[in-house]
């Protein structure tokens, strides 16, 4: 819109106009100084407007054509109107610019992000008492990232249910869940481990050590499901993974 405004001004000055008209235009400009000059500013909050301005600057500085810039901004504005803060999309745009991707590719990536964030919000809204997950952008974004990583909405919802009383645990707990399921432990058993970890006195940073217990158990021929039972039964009794390890793993032979 900024470019459009400048173009309009340029056209205006290219014509021979009477001095009075120019003065009238100047008066109008002064009177309307507080009215948004860009459509960017018409979005829900001043923070969103600032983010959109930042996106515009990024796109312009990145060498995108005005029409392309507008196409991308249109997507962002639509998302903002649907309650998705532009700030959540900035990272994708920054990544696209860094990789010098074409506008269609960038637009497709943004549309995908918007779709995931919308789906993530729906998943969060399904969990009673998890409003904080939608209110805190990092938790909302994390939820979308999990969906993007291939977790189905049911798994994601279950993780939010486990963590909704303790939102700070969501990031490490969900990382633990993804690690275990990628290791091919079933979702059901992985969730048992996550639930036990969140209920325990373990520091969140220690969650990332729990998968290594499964690898060590694998060397001792302890079945992963047996290991889950051991961890679930012993986590309430320990304060660290080091203590847990000494209780649930057999001494290495």
């Amino acid at each position: 819109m900024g470019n459009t405004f400048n173009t309009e001004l340029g056209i205006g000055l290219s014509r021979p106009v009477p001095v009075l008209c120019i003065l009238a235009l100047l008066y109008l400009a002064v009177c309307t100084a507080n009215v948004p000059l860009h459509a960017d500013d018409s979005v829900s909050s001043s923070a969103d407007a600032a983010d959109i301005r930042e996106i515009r600057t990024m796109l312009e500085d990145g060498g995108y054509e005005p029409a392309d810039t507008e196409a991308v901004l249109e997507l962002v504005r639509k998302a903002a109107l649907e309650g998705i803060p532009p700030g959540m999309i900035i990272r994708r745009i920054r990544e696209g610019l860094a990789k010098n991707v074409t506008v269609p590719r960038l637009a497709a990536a943004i549309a995908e992000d918007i779709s995931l964030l919308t789906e993530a919000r729906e998943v969060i809204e399904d969990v009673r008492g998890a409003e904080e997950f939608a209110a805190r952008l990092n938790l909302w974004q994390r939820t979308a990232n999990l969906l993007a990583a291939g977790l189905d909405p049911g798994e994601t919802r279950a993780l939010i249910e486990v963590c909704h009383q303790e939102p700070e645990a969501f990031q490490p707990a969900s990382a633990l869940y993804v690690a275990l399921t990628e290791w091919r432990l079933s979702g059901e058993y992985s969730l048992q481990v996550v639930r036990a970890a969140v209920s325990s006195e373990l520091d969140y940073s220690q969650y990332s050590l729990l998968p290594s217990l499964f690898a060590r158990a694998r060397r001792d021929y302890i079945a992963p499901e047996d290991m889950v039972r051991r961890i679930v039964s012993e986590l309430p009794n320990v304060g660290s993974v080091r203590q847990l390890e000494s209780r649930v793993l057999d001494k290495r032979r």
Partner: protein
Amino acid sequence: MKHKKTVLSILWLLLTAWSAAAFEPIYSLEGYGRADLYSGSGELYGTAGVSAEAGQRNLFDRGYWSWYAAGTVERYLDGLKETVDSEQLAADLRLNSGNYALDVSSTLDLSASSLQNGSILEPGWSGALLYLPDSSPLFASIHYSGYWVYQESNDEDRIAHDLSLTAGRDFSLRLGMSITAGAAASIYSEDYLLDASNQETATKRGDLRWYGELSFEGLAGYFTDWEGILYGEYLDSNANRWISGSSSLEDESEDSWAAGAEWEVNWSPSRTTQFGIEAFLDYRAYLYGTALDSSETSTGEQLTVTKTGGSLNASWTEDNTIFWNLDIAVFRSFSRDPEFDSWNFGLQAGIEYTF
């Protein structure tokens, strides 16, 4: 009164341990075949074996106790045509109290028929006091272990005691380091020193080994762990040896220093698969021992032996019941003395059933 308290404490401990909650025991049976190629003969030796393992951990409020049993029977198919066996029994007990823990363990290694030593009986024991505070990255321990070994066809029967101190620090959740200093003494009951005419004297062999270790361990990713050890040792022994080629006695022939490194990485990319890599390098220089030539005559040159090798193991299972195992190992020893200059290569493949 004091004795009464001690007896009651022991009874309480035994009752607590006996009533411990037990994890399910694990049993496994493996059948395997191995092929070894040795530099000495240049021939390939085949071996077939079966092994069995069982173990269980039992928890109670302030610790755990566990037991472990294993046995192996191997048949050398070529040349040697011998059958050998080895068995091991072990039990461990840990008691926790705040930031401290006490470990006690005992082992019994047995063999009715071993390849070089006939029957073997080797009981072992150990105890450790550990300082493991959860609120600090520092930890420390004092560790004692000992064993006595009887070997039917060998004069190296001995009793050994080892005392070490360890201090360590976890630099982060994924990197820890520890340093150990220790001493180990061995008294040989049948190995007597020789005199200048190659006759046994009344003096038994005794070794004192001083050693230090610097260990690092860590995680590289969720399912990859590694460990590295750098070590050095000095062996002070009164042992001597008879040099048959030159009919001379070499005093203090075992005195030596050594330094080396060991490294191990284990990676489990998924629950079905496990890989392990180990490598080591060990250099030993004898202070008075000399290298012999092929006619067993001293060359007058210092005896040094450099050993290096490694192994790769892989294991695959689809159902956590049947495991397919593969081990490949290589070993190389370099020395001026042809007896210590050798290599071998081994390949073992097995199928293991666990229940």
